[in-house]
């Protein structure tokens, strides 16, 4: 229990719109432990990015977050603006998909990372030394020179390294990475992924990896949560889930991934489309597309079932039937 860094309990996130509320995240609960890589995976519109932003309280003003988000026991939702600003960067860092959006084009990258370092009271000169150190630890080629480079002079992979080092500069215990490699080439993605998986070894940093790419999850994650239309449908140990996925959505999705050649058969598809943000109703949101769906699926929230201590899912039926 001391190992637990972040804990979400029954989190609901609604957006205020004309005429009421729309629900983006429905009853999500999970925890991230110290030094582990926890992946949140799902297709577009599933709410994974919304959850990540809510932890750092970065959502739009019309978002309403219900439930508990606890960091080291402290409820983040109850903190004042000043307190949450203190946590951002210092305890929890965040990197996004497009580093170019996060970097100021008129300052060198080194200066920007130094700015972050100095938030902890380190003086300018010592800060520069630390920047070079950080660049080296994220395997930035020619670290001493790159410190003076401007964002537009760097490639996508390098910029993402800058962001990682900026976030690491204050030694946070948790790094939230929202689609960090989606905009990068495969070979660069592999490099960044290696850096991320080394973070726990070198710095003891836990990583919450938000992605739609199951391949990344298989390569680096320790535990994974699968989301669909705002619901958390399955979570647990990565090896267990890949070996024996239980939720129909997870199973169908895994079969939809191209793994072999076309001669081995067509890919699995899922009928229908993702439902749009909707009002909260007791039901399973996958019901309209699920091959196992029955009456109860449209009327009742499925309970959480445990296949093991490290593998849970929400479904009325999955245990009994083949998908």
């Amino acid at each position: 229990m001391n190992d637990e860094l972040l804990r979400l309990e029954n989190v609901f996130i609604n957006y205020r719109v004309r005429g009421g509320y729309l629900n983006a995240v429905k009853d999500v609960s999970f925890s991230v432990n110290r030094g582990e890589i926890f992946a949140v995976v799902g297709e577009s519109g599933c709410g994974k990015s919304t959850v990540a932003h809510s932890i750092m309280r970065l959502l739009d003003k019309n978002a309403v977050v219900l439930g508990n988000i606890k960091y080291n026991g402290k409820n983040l939702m109850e903190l004042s603006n000043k307190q949450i600003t203190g946590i951002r960067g210092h305890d929890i860092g965040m990197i996004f998909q497009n580093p170019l959006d996060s970097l100021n084009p008129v300052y060198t990258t080194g200066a920007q990372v130094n700015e972050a370092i100095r938030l902890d009271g380190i003086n300018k000169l010592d800060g520069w030394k630390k920047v070079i150190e950080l660049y080296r630890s994220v395997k930035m080629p020619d670290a001493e020179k790159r410190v003076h480079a401007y964002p537009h002079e760097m490639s996508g992979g390098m910029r993402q390294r800058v962001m990682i080092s900026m976030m690491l500069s204050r030694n946070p215990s948790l790094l939230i990475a929202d689609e960090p490699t989606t905009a990068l080439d495969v070979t660069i993605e592999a490099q960044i992924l290696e850096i991320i998986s080394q973070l726990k070894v070198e710095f003891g940093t836990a990583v919450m990896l938000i992605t739609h790419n199951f391949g990344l999850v298989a390569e680096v994650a320790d535990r994974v949560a699968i989301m669909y239309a705002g619901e958390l449908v399955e979570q647990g140990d990565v090896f267990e889930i890949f070996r024996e996925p239980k939720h129909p959505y997870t199973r169908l999705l895994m079969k939809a991934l191209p793994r072999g050649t076309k001669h081995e058969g067509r890919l699995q598809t899922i009928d229908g489309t993702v439902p749009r943000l909707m009002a909260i109703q007791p039901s399973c949101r996958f019901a309209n597309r699920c091959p196992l769906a029955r009456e109860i699926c449209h009327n009742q929230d499925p309970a959480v079932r445990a296949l093991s201590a490290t593998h849970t899912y929400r479904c009325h039926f999955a245990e009994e039937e083949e998908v």
Partner: protein
Amino acid sequence: MEKMQPVIQIEHLSKHFSIDNGFFSKGKKTVKAVNDFTLNLEKGKILGLVGESGSGKTTLARVILNLTSATEGMVLVNGIDMSKCSAAQKKELRKNIAVVFQDPLSNLNPRETVMSSIIRPMVLHGMKRSLAREKAYEVLESVKMDTHYLNSYPHQLSGGQLQRIAIARALAMSPEIMILDEPTSALDISVQAQILNLLLDLQEKHQLTYMIITHDLNVIRYISDQVAVMYLGQLVEYGETKMMCSNPSHPYSKALMAASPILDPTMRGREKDIMKGDPGSLINFPSGCSFHPRCRYAEEICMQKKPEMERIDENHWARCHLCAQKTVSTTH
């Protein structure tokens, strides 16, 4: 047995762009997007073209489609060089080769309904409007979309739907060849599966020839018959899919395969050959083999002499001094 003429023949194709250095500086820089590219596309086959950003793959597609002219070399479509044709001939030839680009949001004219976007190519080539409308219904059904979407505007639809419409429009002309540039990169996994299945079904039904450009190796392995790997504007390896994916020869292909995530956590501990550095620049090429700065096997000769495409095996070619040597040594 008579060998059929390849549907697309690309011969020593180069495409260079010059970019101005500005009013006050002397000289222009040249972006060599495609360099000495030679490849054939067989009828009824699916060619997967793999390359990262800056590999020149989209430029190659644009030259094949005659959207931009070649600097050197030529492209023959069914034996004809489109760049040497009259405007009328070109228009006629264009019926035969269709394209679907990457971004679903910009593939369709935002000011036109789905119906008018789909019928436009047909009407342009002289089909009667009423017939074209009937065909629009047909093709939309073949991409498994409800025909009421014909009255929608693009901004009302999702990425998957837009991509299916783009494919439907391409099909409406009954082309022989389809070039698809990252057709599923912007799509969710479940939608990608639908599109890939669809592409395979259509290919079987209409005997189509595809060139699919993508950076996703899982998609390439799944759908292609042959794979061509591009690096800095050059073809570095070409062969049958099975061979290329299980046993690539060129160090770059090897690195690509190694970098591609495997959907099995138990394979995590495998030895990974992670390439260092960033993809090179299309302006400042290294000497000799353009891959040598990133290649872990690079030797003296790699820095000095540019390698040619050499045959490694039956229908398997690679552009690498060391791969060629290996073949030589094994045949002796």
